[in-house]
């Protein structure tokens, strides 16, 4: 039989239908921008897929006064438009509006971005880490909520029996920024990404993507900034602390070697703090 002739494709219109296909072993197809490149990577496309784009509840962004819920099938372009101008989400909007290129952003989804296991350069991952997002999963046992940090760490195991359905965000940020370093301005994967946010208690949250295989919070720097006597929200001072507390092991990759990804972090922190200081939320500083 020619490859793909017997492939099963479920265009689920409900979550129940999607879970039924998942139980039969179907792999989740989001926008397709990662999976469709499997043949390029020498990987066969799955024999059975289930598409989520026809499930209305997963394709909307709900914005409330104290929280935001993002459906997993929402595209980067839709997310950027939906949250544009929402105070505190400047970083997430920048991540959604600058990832990849415009054509990809119209197709690639939020769920796909955080579920692509081998995609270290996902822009939304660090941006959602500083939002302290909660990921909602539909598992074979029912719905489950998990913090984004734990989700990113354990997603390999979690996704074996679940579908990501929604991302929940509290509206507790006063400002955020997302600084990415691609080699060219046009559409490259970023060598390193630094997301920063300041919450209502004036605590600074920082996360790094693309430097290590999985994005993570930079807790050593967050603690150093908290402990710092002088105003840590000074770009130069923050860069100095970033240099001192750089505990990343850079990954070698096609775009850059690990040492370089690690070394560019302090200047990116400096740019990030400068960007934070320009936001309306921090005008009081």
């Amino acid at each position, binding site marked *: 039989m020619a490859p793909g002739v017997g492939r099963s494709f479920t265009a689920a219109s409900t979550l129940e239908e999607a879970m039924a296909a998942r139980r039969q072993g179907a792999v989740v197809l989001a926008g397709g921008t990662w999976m469709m*490149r499997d043949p390029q990577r020498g990987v066969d496309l799955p024999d059975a897929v289930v598409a989520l784009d026809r499930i209305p509840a997963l394709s909307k962004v709900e914005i409330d006064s104290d929280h935001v819920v993002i459906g997993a099938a929402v595209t980067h372009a839709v997310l950027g438009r939906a949250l544009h101008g929402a105070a505190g989400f400047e970083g997430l909007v920048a991540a959604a509006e600058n990832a990849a290129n415009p054509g990809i952003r119209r*197709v690639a989804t939020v769920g796909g971005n955080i579920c692509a296991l081998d995609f270290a350069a996902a822009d939304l991952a660090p941006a959602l880490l500083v939002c302290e997002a909660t990921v909602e999963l539909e598992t074979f046992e029912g719905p489950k909520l998990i913090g984004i940090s734990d989700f990113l760490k354990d997603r390999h195991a979690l996704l074996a029996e679940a579908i990501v359905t929604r991302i929940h965000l509290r509206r507790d940020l006063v400002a955020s920024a997302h600084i990415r370093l691609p080699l060219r301005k046009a559409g490259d994967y970023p060598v390193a990404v630094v997301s920063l946010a300041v919450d209502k208690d004036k605590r600074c949250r920082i996360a790094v993507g693309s430097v290590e295989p999985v994005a993570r919070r930079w807790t050593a720097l967050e603690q150093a900034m908290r402990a710092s006597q002088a105003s840590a929200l000074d770009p130069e001072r923050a860069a100095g602390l970033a240099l001192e507390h750089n505990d990343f092991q850079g990954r070698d990759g096609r775009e850059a070697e690990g040492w370089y990804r690690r070394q560019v972090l302090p200047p990116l922190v400096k740019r990030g703090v400068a960007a934070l200081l320009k936001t309306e939320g921090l005008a009081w500083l």
Partner: protein
Amino acid sequence: MVVTFQLNGEDCSFHGDPMTPLVDILRRERFLTGTKAVCREGFCGACTVHVDDEAVPSCLKPIGLVQGCAVTTIEGLSSGNQALHPLQANLEAADAVQCGMCCPGIVMSLSAFVRDNPHASRPEIKAAMVGNICRCTGYERIVDAVADCLDQARKAGQSVGGLHV
């Protein structure tokens, strides 16, 4: 699997692997070879088509996701026997076409952009072209052509592809 969709305004159906990239169906089955498959990774933009009026890379679009959608290719924008799309006319006038490999993708990306952004600035035009790679022109003439196209439409109080500006 059978997938039905509209292709350049006509009903179309496909029988086969639902994970077949749209670009392959356009080129191999429909002989619409204006759409190019170059990188097949979403980086070059040469395969850009409109799906439900949005410019997207057809190399990464499995046909299964196109069920019920309206697809427009470069051939659907102007058949060749009728007037060119204003953007095509401006690209020609600005001598912005060299080998031509990137041009269908650029036209499909930017025709949607000029439709939706009648007041776009030069930096906005450049940002909209980030996913379209051209190895020949150095881009400036393409940006000139888009800016001219928008300028003419504004002066005439007309639309570029549907929206009045």
